[in-house]
Every structure is written in structure tokens, then in C-alpha cells.
């Protein structure tokens, strides 16, 4: 089995040291986890490995032979494969063509594409992963995110037949966008890569995944390596301590108050294009979770409640009034929204923190004629970013310079700028590190204590059980049940995802 040694990896951006003398040793046939808070240097290290960013200092040796790593071509030559969160696929091409995206197409008759061989080899690549449920002819856009990821991995196996063998697979938060079912498939694929002898570097915030599928773990903090250890010799508390440098005894802040009896949101038989017959009530100060197998209509339900999607049946009453007709009306009525995709749906990445935070309240800082009052705006913004615990240099700093967790805090600062009565959160802690997660949870608790009610869609089971009062489980666009979160086991919750509403009725 081969050994890949990375030594002295260092990178500075101006005066900021992103990575300092990090050593990493990766073995073939072994899964190595890379952990750390956002901004700890994980992404920088991956960028250096992939050759996208050139290192200030770095030496790479494969089986004790020095190998150059100056650009993306070198990384490819070395046999490194990168599976990113944002997948590099061409949505309108077929699965087979996507698998062949960076490999030369097989030819016949001096130039014509040999489609039969192409499909045959693409199928073989998928089969090597043990995947046989993906149709090669459909457009890649029609696959689920999980299947797209499997397709991407298959394309690297294809390449190994023609070019360099793939020695190392780097997965950057692969399960962030996957359902549990899809994640399971990915794990079995990773174990088959492992058995083919490849080394795997696995970047994730999810503790239980790391504990389950990894053999070794390295933790980065503030650009330095703080720990490398076999997984069997460390537990999750030890990892959290290493990542944060502080002891988080509980990952979820305790409840100090109970929801009141006042109903703030009353939904009866809500039906839209995507969801059917949803009924629940939400009390003042309550957190209601929405969950289920991925794409069961959770996000669409939130959108309907927020006024982005008209309903064709049933009723929504929020504070006794019908649901808002638009996002504008919703914010005006004290209803905030944290969308699922912070980069594409929530942030103006190139614009300053200040402008992003105050956006939903901008009218408040303007005179009757619309002239901005800069001082009032800045003062309120400073207060808001302090409340969410944002780490930043100046309010004029563009948002893209912040880490993922801090970007999410900017979105939250906007959401609380209206002192909301009701908040809709869609995957509020996706791709957010442990420390920032805890701060967001604490903020949510604080909000509910002051009487704000929250509806939150999440696929993070510990988060649902730890934060919510009740959880509404959806199944294929329908409501299958509402369960009390207190005392619920995550395994029990997961099992309930797979009960369809009709089966549920038969069982009871």
C-alpha cells in the first residue's frame, strides 16, 4: 500500500496565516478524517492539495519519492481526486457523458464517437462502486445530489483505466447535501474505494460519520495541526475539545422556558403544488422541527408558509391573519426567513457585511424621502452582529471573505434585525462548524425565550432532537406525524422517516 506524505504545508494571505507547517500522512486503504472549525485551514489545505492555490511551502512525497505539486495538472498527475460540495457536473449532458467529462471519448472509424463503448465503460465504472440504480441516459440534472456525487466518483474510476491510478480521494463535506439514505450509499462506496487500495481524506463536521467511517483523524485549529490520532483512541468529546480549544459539555443549550399556550400559527389542511394536507399549530416560543427523508417537501412547506408559493387548499393563519402573499409582506409582519442556500439565496457575497445585514430593515434607517441615516444604520448593525457572535474585521468587509459559519451568522443577523415574532429556518446549520453551531443554537434559545416562535427544517437528527419541542415528519409531501422531541432517540426518529402516512394509520 502506498503512503502519501504532505510536509510543511504553509500558506499566508497577506498578513493572515491560513496554514502553518501542517504535516499529513495518508495511507492507501485507509480513511483519514480532517476536522476543524470553519476558518481552521481545512479548505486552504484542500486547495493546496488540488493545486488551485499555490503553497508558500509544501513538499509532497508518494512512497518516499518527491512529487511536484504546483498546479492542478500536477495534482491530477499525482492521482488526486476531489469531490467537492459544489459538484462539477454539466447538468444538461447525460450521466454517461458526465462520467466521461474529463476523459477522452472512445472513438471508432477514425473520429466518430463510439457511444456503445462509452456507455459500456461508464456502466462498468458505476458497477465498480456497486451502483446499478442510475440510468446512464438521463440528464445529470435529473439525478439527486447523492447520485450526482456517485456519478462524479465513478468518473474518477474510469480515468484510472486510461491514465494515472487514483491514489487519493478528497471528500469535502460530502454528506452536507445528502439524505441519510444517500449518505449510506456514499459510505459503502467509500469503503469499496478503500478496498481498492485508495487513500481517502474525509472532511466533515459530522461527528458520528467521522467516528463511523474513518480510521484516523487530524484536527486543525487556527491553521495549525493540533492532533493526529487513530479514531479508536479518541472520542467525540476529545475531538470537540481539540477543534474548539474549549470544552463544550453539551452540544445544545438547555431549555429554560416552555412554549406558552398562545397559538401563533395555525395551519389546517394546507395543500400546494408540492405538499398535501399539512395541519399543525405552533405556539408562542415553540421550536417546531420539520424533517423526513430528503426532498419530502420540507423546504416547500416553509416556502408556502413564508408566502413564496401560493396554496391551493387549506388555510394558514399567522397571528390570526392569512399567510403573507410575498416575502416583502412577510418581513413587514415580523416573519423572518433563513433560506437553504446561503450563497445563492441569502447573501450578496461581494457586498459589505453592513449592507447584507440591514437589507430587510433598510426602510427603517431612511427618512420619509428615502435618505439613509448612516449612523443609526451602523449602530444597529454593530449591535446585531455582536448578538450573533460574528467574527469580522470591519463592517465594510465583503461577505465572501468570511468563513461559512460566519456567513451564516450574517444571515441570522439579518433575520433578527426585524425582532421577529416568527422565524422560518431551512437547514440553519448546514456546513457550519461546531463552535458556530453552538452559538446559533444559543441564539435560537434566546429568541424563543423572548417569545419568538421558530419552524426549522433540518436533516441533522441530533439538532432536531436537541433543539425542537416537536417534530413534524413528512413523507412524500404529506405529513406522517408530529412527535414530541423530548426523550426521543435519533434512531427512533430516523425509523419514523420511513413510515408512510397510510402505514402509520394501519399500525395504530
Amino acid at each position, binding site marked *: 500500500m502506498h503512503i502519501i506524505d504532505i510536509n510543511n504545508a504553509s500558506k499566508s494571505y497577506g498578513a493572515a496565516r491560513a496554514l502553518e507547517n501542517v504535516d499529513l500522512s495518508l495511507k492507501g486503504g485507509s480513511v483519514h478524517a480532517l476536522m476543524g472549525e470553519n476558518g481552521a485551514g481545512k479548505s486552504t489545505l484542500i486547495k493546496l492539495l488540488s493545486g488551485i492555490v499555490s503553497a508558500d511551502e509544501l513538499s509532497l512525497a508518494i512512497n518516499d519519492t518527491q512529487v511536484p505539486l504546483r498546479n492542478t495538472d500536477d495534482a491530477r498527475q499525482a492521482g488526486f481526486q476531489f469531490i467537492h460540495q459544489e459538484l462539477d457536473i454539466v447538468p444538461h449532458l447525460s450521466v454517461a457523458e458526465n462520467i466521461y467529462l474529463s476523459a477522452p471519448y472512445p472513438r471508432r472509424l477514425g473520429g466518430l464517437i463510439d457511444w456503445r463503448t462509452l456507455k459500456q465503460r461508464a456502466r462498468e465504472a458505476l458497477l465498480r462502486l456497486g451502483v446499478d440504480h442510475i440510468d446512464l441516459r438521463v440528464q445529470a440534472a435529473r439525478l439527486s445530489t447523492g447520485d450526482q456525487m456517485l456519478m462524479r466518483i465513478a468518473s474518477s474510476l474510469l480515468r484510472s483505466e486510461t491514465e494515472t491510478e487514483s491514489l487519493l480521494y478528497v471528500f469535502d463535506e460530502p454528506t452536507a447535501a445528502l439524505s441519510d439514505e444517500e449518505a449510506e450509499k456514499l459510505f459503502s462506496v467509500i469503503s469499496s474505494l478503500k478496498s481498492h487500495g485508495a487513500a481517502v481524506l474525509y472532511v466533515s463536521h459530522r461527528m458520528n460519520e467521522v467516528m463511523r467511517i474513518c480510521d484516523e483523524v487530524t484536527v486543525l485549529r487556527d491553521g495549525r495541526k493540533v492532533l493526529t490520532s487513530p479514531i479508536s483512541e479518541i472520542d467525540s468529546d476529545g475531538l470537540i475539545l481539540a477543534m474548539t480549544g474549549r470544552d463544550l459539555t453539551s452540544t445544545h443549550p438547555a431549555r429554560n422556558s416552555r412554549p406558552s399556550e398562545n397559538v401563533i400559527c395555525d395551519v389546517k389542511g394546507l395543500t400546494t403544488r408540492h405538499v398535501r394536507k399539512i395541519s399543525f399549530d405552533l405556539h408562542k416560543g415553540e421550536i417546531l422541527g420539520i424533517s423526513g427523508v430528503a426532498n419530502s417537501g420540507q423546504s416547500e412547506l416553509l416556502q408556502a408558509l413564508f408566502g413564496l408559493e401560493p396554496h391551493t387548499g387549506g388555510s394558514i393563519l399567522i397571528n390570526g391573519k392569512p399567510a403573507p402573499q410575498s416575502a416583502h409582506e412577510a418581513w413587514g409582519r415580523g416573519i423572518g426567513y433563513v433560506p437553504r442556500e446561503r450563497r445563492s439565496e441569502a447573501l450578496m457575497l*461581494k*457586498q459589505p457585511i453592513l*449592507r447584507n445585514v440591514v437589507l430587510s430593515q*433598510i426602510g427603517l434607517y431612511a427618512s420619509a424621502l428615502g435618505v439613509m441615516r448612516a449612523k443609526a444604520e451602523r449602530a444597529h448593525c454593530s449591535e446585531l452582529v455582536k448578538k450573533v457572535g460574528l467574527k469580522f474585521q470591519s463592517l465594510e468587509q465583503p461577505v465572501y471573505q468570511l468563513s461559512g459559519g460566519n456567513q451564516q451568522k450574517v444571515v441570522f443577523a439579518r433575520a433578527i434585525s426585524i425582532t421577529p415574532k416568527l422565524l422560518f429556518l431551512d437547514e440553519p446549520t448546514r456546513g457550519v462548524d461546531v463552535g458556530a453551531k453552538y452559538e446559533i443554537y444559543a441564539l435560537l434559545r434566546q429568541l424563543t425565550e423572548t417569545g419568538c416562535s421558530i419552524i426549522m427544517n433540518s436533516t441533522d437528527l441530533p439538532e432536531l432532537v436537541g433543539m425542537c419541542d416537536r417534530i413534524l415528519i413528512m413523507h412524500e409531501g404529506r405529513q406522517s406525524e408530529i412527535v414530541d422531541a423530548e426523550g426521543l432517540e435519533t434512531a427512533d426518529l430516523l425509523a419514523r422517516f420511513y413510515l408512510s402516512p397510510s402505514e402509520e394509520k394501519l399500525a395504530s
Partner: protein
Amino acid sequence: MIRFLKLYGTLVGFVLICVFFAIQLPETFLTPRNLINISQQISMLAVVAFAMTLVMVMNDFDLSVGSMASLAGVVAAVIFAAGYPVSLGIAAALAVGILGGLFNGFLVSIIGILPFVATLGTLTMFSGFAFLISGGKTIFGRDIPKDFSGFARGGISLEELGMAGLKLPYLTLMMIGALVLVWFVLEQTSFGRRLYAIGGNYEAARLAGIRVKRIRLAAFGLTGFGAAVAGLMYASRVASANPTQGSGLMLDAIAAVFLGMTMSEEGEPRVLYTLIGVLILGVLDNGLTQLSVDSYIREILVGAIVISAVAFSSITKQRRG
């Protein structure tokens, strides 16, 4: 140093152009008379470019500004020719500008047609209306009231500043007024901030509660208004109106905004930078004309300079980090 060039490369280029002409034309270029002359020459283009900045802030653009300027001039002139007072002609022209702009906004924002296609269509329509109303002819001097054409010839005397016989033209003052107004709207009002938010991320702006459709509609309306103002300035200056006189404005206005965008760190249009873009085009035109450079060669040079400025800026900005 590199950071400086990245942001101020275009400004440095502008200074170099000025230095070049000052050396080549020592007698005439850097004289108060010539500088005032340049300010008057660029005033119409500047007003259109400032108005164009409003929509380009949202990542949209408006191809119809040139033919709107022609149409506004023709509308005013036809009303003058029919013997109505000057004020009515001006009011009608401005109303046409706002309505035409709102129509663009309606197509782009409410119906959802790409700005390129929508405003290409209205470009042709406005141009057709201008021909229809004028009967395809130029409406000449004797039909244009002195009150109207006199405006472009008038100005505030600069005798007190020791520049005998020189006037600060009203057209230049109009340009400065438009600059201050657009700067104020974009940088100091909540409306301007919403425009920038839409340009930064349309979907995020919508979900954050900005009334994106309404704001986009209004911005197009303002751009149409600006184009009509420029059309009136033009008609006053040449004391005539014909259905094609504004057609050169659109491309130059877009070029000026693009030149300006090269100076902004995040590539956003800013109206003060647009002014620099307009000045570059104006100075080049003025200097090359004085050097008797053939007008065809002038066009080639101006195109090459716009491309190289934008290319330089995108190359240096790619190397960020």
C-alpha cells in the same frame, strides 16, 4: 503597487491620455476654453451614461436610450413646430421618456424578458415612432423657438474669475446636476441600496423582502427619463431634431459605464467612476479631432482603449489572492 494599478489603472490611463494631448497640443488642449468646450461636448453622453448606471447597477442594461433620446427631441420639436409653448414641448418629451422607460421596465421586470431582447425591441420601436412623428425629416431652426435653442448657447459668465468671454454652459451645469442627483440616489438613499442589493443577488434580495419587480420597473423608468433629458439637451444644442441624432449615445454610454466599473474593487458600477469613463471618451474625441486624426481611425482607437481597459482590469482581478 499592484493593488493600486488594479483599482486606478483606468484613472492612470486617463491622466496619461491628458498628458499626451497636453504635449501634442500645447497651444490649445489645456486651455480653459477647450476644457469648457469638452465639458459641453460630453454633457449629453454623460447624462445618458449616468442614467444607464442606474440599471447597470442591477446587472441590467438599456439599449433603447439612444433612440429614446432621438424620440424625445423629435416630440418636443413637433410640438414647437405646431406653435405650442416651450414648456409643453419639454413636458411632453419628458413624459414620453418616463413612459418609454416604464414600458422597458414592464417588459423586463413584470413580463420577464431579458433586458437585451426587450430593449433591443423597444430601440426599434422608439426609433420607428421618431420617424413616424417627424415624417422622416429633420425639424429645422425656424420651427425651434429661440427660448429653447438659446438654452444650450447660454451659460454663467466667468468674467469675474478673470476669464473674459467665457461662459460655464448651462449644458455643463445640467450634467453636474444629473451627476449629483444620480450619486445621491445611488449612494445616499434606500432606493439606491436596494438597486445594489438586486445587482448583488436578485434572488437573495427578493427573499430578504425587497420588492424587486417594482424597484426594477422604477429604475428603468428613471433611465428613460434621463435619456429624454439628454435628447432635449441635444436638440437644444443643434437647434434641430431628427429621428437619428441620438443613436450614437447608447454604445458610448455603455462603454463609459464599463470603463468606470474597472475602477471599482468588486466590479460594481458607481456613478463617479462612470463620469471618469465619460471623460476618457470625451477627451479622446476632442484631442484626436484637434490632431486631425481621421474619424474612422478615431473609432478604432476608442474601441481598442475600452477593450484594453476592461481586459487589464479583469486580468489583474483574476489574480486576487
